[in-house]
């Protein structure tokens, strides 16, 4: 978060002593539980990173570096107490390490050193945690616990956002998501993408969860939460969110055994839902087709053009926030008046310091071709690896393996939705997404270890284990 937004945030805050005390009590209880099970410190750090309780409270937590303390405890707990026999360092973690080093290098010679240092501050933390996280994900329960905590943390924003959308209809930049600084997960387009991306994970937790074993209450809550997730793009009126919903529908159909009936059901649901959508939403979605008249879409295209030109001269990138040197002029074209007497209006727009509005161009402009290549490689390897796990375990329905393929599928679908949303939003370094990547790495190393163990199992072992070794 920039220094300016931090100041604005403090000015906008309303004192809520009860809320402060509540967060303090919650954090204190988590710390106490963490002393008994150090892995809970890892979950605590993830919680602080996603929910940012210090931004939701007024005074108490602002003065304590809770994030740093939680990470220190998580790392010390792992280093001193945790069993490291099962920990593996994967290629993807190495690539993240390279990306971290590269970001450090570009920050040192950044076009805008002060802004770059500010962004480096949180990006480096997110990357370090993502590199560290898979080392701790040694058991199935830990993988599940992290997935659950991520979903519940996101639900802090999503449940409120969903209810407000039902009550008010929302509006672009209007739906108040608890904090007013519009950054991190609290930014409309970002939470739209993340909310849709975690829907498959919500359903996986409701079906295969062991912390909250599946029953009618869990299923009801999961369905309600998924509904709230779908309402977020409507409430925040983000076009990216709509595209993500369509992608989710397509992915679910693709992997559904009853494509025809599900497809018909989805189409019926969509047609029934449209009349109930707020006009602010349908109006804005209509602009997807008329992007030439839309300044927001035109800006994106101009910034992307500028970035491609920029990297011709700066192939190694300009460091964080390099977009600040951009400025461009373009014309928007729109039609005005009645159908019979329509006239075309051309407007000249001059803009400068416009953000990338795309994770791909953000990476290219800031970290150059080497940074984009490393980042893309991390994502491509993750997609391939998770897909391989899904295929390998697709037929494994025996106890102890039945959860693997569905989790791989849920993570894969969430990842694809993120990669789609990332075309239109600058979320290349979003900590929540790095955690999703860490979950995939954790699943890969876990599965590899299980296969190795099963390979070592003697020939007279139980039937299910033998089947595992053969798979």
């Amino acid at each position, binding site marked *: 978060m920039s220094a300016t937004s931090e100041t604005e945030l403090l000015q906008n805050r309303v004192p809520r002593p009860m*809320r402060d005390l*509540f967060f303090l009590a*919650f954090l204190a*209880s*988590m710390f106490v*539980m963490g002393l*008994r*099970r150090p*892995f*809970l410190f890892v*979950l605590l750090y993830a*919680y602080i990173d996603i929910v940012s309780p210090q931004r*939701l409270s007024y005074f108490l937590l602002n003065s304590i570096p809770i994030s740093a303390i939680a990470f220190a405890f998580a790392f010390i707990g792992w280093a001193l107490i*945790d*069993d490291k026999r099962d920990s593996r360092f994967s290629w993807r973690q190495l690539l993240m390490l390279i990306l971290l080093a590269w970001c450090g290098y570009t920050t040192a010679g950044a076009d805008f050193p002060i802004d770059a240092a500010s962004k480096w501050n949180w990006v480096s933390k997110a990357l370090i945690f993502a590199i560290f996280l898979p080392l701790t994900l*040694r*058991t*199935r*329960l*830990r993988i599940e*616990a992290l997935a*659950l*905590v991520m979903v*519940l*943390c996101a*639900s*802090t*924003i999503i*449940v*409120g956002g969903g*209810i*407000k959308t039902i*009550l008010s209809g929302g509006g672009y930049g209007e739906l108040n998501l*608890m904090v007013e600084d519009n950054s991190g997960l609290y930014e409309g387009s970002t939470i739209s993408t993340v909310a849709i991306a975690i829907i498959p994970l919500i359903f996986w937790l409701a079906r295969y969860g*062991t*912390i*909250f*074993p599946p029953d009618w209450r869990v299923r009801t809550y999961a369905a309600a939460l998924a509904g709230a997730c779908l309402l977020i793009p409507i409430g925040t009126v983000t076009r990216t969110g709509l595209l993500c919903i369509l992608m989710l529908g397509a992915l679910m159909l693709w992997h559904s055994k009853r494509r025809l009936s599900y497809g018909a059901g989805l189409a019926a649901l969509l047609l029934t839902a449209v009349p109930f959508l707020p006009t602010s939403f349908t109006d804005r979605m209509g602009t997807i087709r008329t992007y030439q008249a839309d300044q927001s879409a035109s800006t994106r295209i101009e910034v992307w053009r500028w970035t491609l030109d920029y990297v011709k001269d700066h192939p190694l990138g300009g460091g964080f926030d390099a977009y600040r040197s951009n400025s461009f002029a373009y014309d928007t074209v729109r039609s005005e008046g009645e159908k019979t007497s329509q006239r075309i209006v051309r407007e000249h727009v001059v803009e400068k310091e416009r953000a990338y509005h795309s994770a791909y161009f953000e990476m290219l402009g800031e970290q150059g071709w080497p940074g984009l290549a490393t980042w893309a490689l991390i994502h491509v390897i993750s997609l391939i690896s998770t897909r391989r796990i899904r295929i390998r375990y697709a037929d494994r329905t025996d106890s*102890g393996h039945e959860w693997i393929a569905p989790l791989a599928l849920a993570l894969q679908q969430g990842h694809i939705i993120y990669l789609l949303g990332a075309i239109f939003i600058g979320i290349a370094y979003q900590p929540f997404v790095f955690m999703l990547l860490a979950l995939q790495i954790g699943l890969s190393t876990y599965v590899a270890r299980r296969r190795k*163990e099963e390979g070592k199992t003697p020939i007279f072992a139980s039937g299910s284990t033998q089947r595992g070794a053969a798979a």
Partner: protein
Amino acid sequence: MIDTFSILLSHALLFVACWRLLSRPALNDERDVRNGAAAESGAPPDA
């Protein structure tokens, strides 16, 4: 009001989840549980 409800609900669930994890040996080592050595009475099924 809505924000408070959202915060309370999610944090209550987070707390219960972490509380339940305290009594799960499989959080740290699931091999014993998988091998059936730790078939504790009343414990939830682990991995």
